């Protein structure tokens, strides 16, 4: 496999609206990098530009340091798994997998050997003679994976490969993809709009918004230290408090007049955020100095199975808090919210 570098990729169909804007990516050999973002953010377009299916207006693509921007798509030696599976309906499973090998002039008996090995790996050796229409969605996607891996491509692209599968299968398939990727040390670029899928599978994540990369970091870093409000919102932060100014390294004056202590936030943060499950709900005001404590009233509760989700009216607006306590607070109940200062993050605009 190989390393991928994308430099200053830009795309516009009409010369006015910028579809992609200065995309830079570095994928190490043997790494899985995800492009994460809402629909229309340009993640699939980025993938297709790198694969050579779309011609970008600007930028270079390097594979192992070699500029391949001008190389035709069918000479790039890539693999791709499509959301729609994109199997060849008129060929059976074995012929689908053999297609790329035949293009590389691999002959029998090597051809059959490689096809069988690959089908064995995805657990479909018994389905060799079946046609795509006779397979379930999950099986089709595994054939698609086998077909794109058997040619030993430099890079494997996966374009929302799991979004047509049901929830259980999606988890199984993503673990299978991750396991194969780690075992064979493949370099993969994975496009998804699903944050949990993305975190479960990726070494690094590029969060995209409106044709640009908002943050490019390790999964853990994105999850615990989102850089912007867009990234934070997209990965599940729900409470945002505007900062008027920072008082010192740890204290922030909010728009509504409150002062919050946020242990790790940078002084030039423009807002603070916290995950609903990191807010503690208390029934009585704690004895402590009252810092980061806010009184509120329960508006509405939702049972989530292992926890309750509350909308709580406070001086800072409606705050969303999730409590895994077995006790349920009824609507109208007066509570106190504790925002642990280590869990409050600072964000840039």
């Amino acid at each position, binding site marked *: 496999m190989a390393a991928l570098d994308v430099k200053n990729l830009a795309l516009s169909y009409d010369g006015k609206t910028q579809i992609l804007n200065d995309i830079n990516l570095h994928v190490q050999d043997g790494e899985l990098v995800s492009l994460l973002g809402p629909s229309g953010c340009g993640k699939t377009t980025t993938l297709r530009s790198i694969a050579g299916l779309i011609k970008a207006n600007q930028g270079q693509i390097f594979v192992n340091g070699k500029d391949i921007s001008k190389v035709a*798509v069918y000479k790039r030696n890539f693999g791709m798994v499509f959301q729609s599976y994109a199997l060849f309906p008129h060929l059976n499973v074995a012929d689908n997998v053999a297609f790329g090998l035949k293009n590389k002039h691999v002959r029998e008996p090597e051809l059959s050997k490689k096809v069988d090995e690959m089908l064995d790996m995805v657990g479909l050796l018994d389905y060799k003679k079946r046609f795509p229409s006779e397979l379930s969605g999950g099986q089709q996607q595994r054939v*698609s994976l086998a077909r794109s891996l058997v040619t030993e491509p430099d890079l494997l692209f996966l374009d929302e490969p799991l979004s047509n599968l049901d929830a259980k299968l999606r988890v199984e398939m993503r673990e299978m993809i991750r396991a194969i990727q780690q075992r064979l040390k493949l370099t993969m670029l994975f496009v998804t709009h699903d944050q949990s899928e993305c975190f479960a599978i990726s070494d690094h994540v590029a969060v995209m918004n409106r044709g640009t990369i908002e943050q490019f970091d390790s999964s853990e870093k994105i999850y615990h230290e989102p850089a912007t409000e867009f990234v934070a919102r997209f990965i599940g932060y729900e409470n945002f408090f505007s900062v008027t100014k920072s008082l010192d390294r740890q204290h922030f004056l909010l728009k509504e007049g409150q002062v919050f202590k946020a242990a790790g936030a940078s002084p030039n943060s423009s807002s603070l955020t916290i995950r609903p499950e990191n807010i503690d709900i208390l029934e009585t005001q704690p004895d402590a100095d009252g810092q980061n404590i806010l009184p509120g009233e329960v508006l509405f509760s939702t049972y989530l199975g292992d926890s309750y989700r509350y909308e709580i009216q406070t001086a800072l607006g409606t705050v969303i808090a999730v409590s895994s306590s077995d006790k349920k607070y009824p609507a109208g109940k007066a509570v106190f919210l504790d925002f642990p200062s280590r869990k409050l993050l600072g964000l840039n605009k």
Partner: protein
Amino acid sequence: MATNQHLFMRIIGIVTLFFLLAPLLLIVVTSFGSEPTISFPIKGFTFSWYANIFAQDTFIQGFITSLEVALLASLTAAAAALPAAYALTRKRNRMNRFLENVFLAPVMVPEVVLGFSLYSSLVIYAHFPLFISLLFGHFLICLPYSARLIIAGMRQFDGSAEEAAWILGSSRLSGFFKILVPNITTSILSGFLLSFINSFNNIPVSVFLSGPNVNMLPTAILNYLQNNYDPTVSAISSCLMLLTLLFMLLAEKKLGLKGFVS
């Protein structure tokens, strides 16, 4: 209402079927009648009118001309429609929409006008050979059928399978023939069959572009009827029906009649 609805539909169905089938059946029956003019009920039973078809040079020659013209016109129309439809379905811009309309347009010109204009221009004015003119007229008749079905087939086929082929090392040309074409054979064949039947049975264009030795079967029948009203016409009509029926059964069996009747 559900049952009223159903009853009403059945009545319409039966009436249509009766008025469609009864005349056709009548023709078949009269083709075996021994009287010298078509009459029903028939008095005697004979195969001689079928034999008479072969005595009429105009029918044999018309049948051969019809086969030749219909086959050549359908083939050239399919060959022209295939790459055109491919280019049209890949990109949707104004130029392509205009061209798509051009390919589908002949069906909208009144056929009598089409026949008359081809006759006046190609035959009378440009002195094209009659057979070539006839062939071109039928190419125009066939083109919309082939274009329509092939365009529909290509639209329906998931374009990402072709992209997958490119990524797996196929050039565009190879992807076209190895992936796209094998998956739209039903559309191509349906378009061909529909073209063929329409060309074979056409009258308005053929009637203008016919002459000595260039006469298609339906126009030959029409000509024969102007001087005769004997069961030979019933016999040849029965043969035509039988051929069409066989053709349709073949199409239904091989193609599932996909997009064929509808």
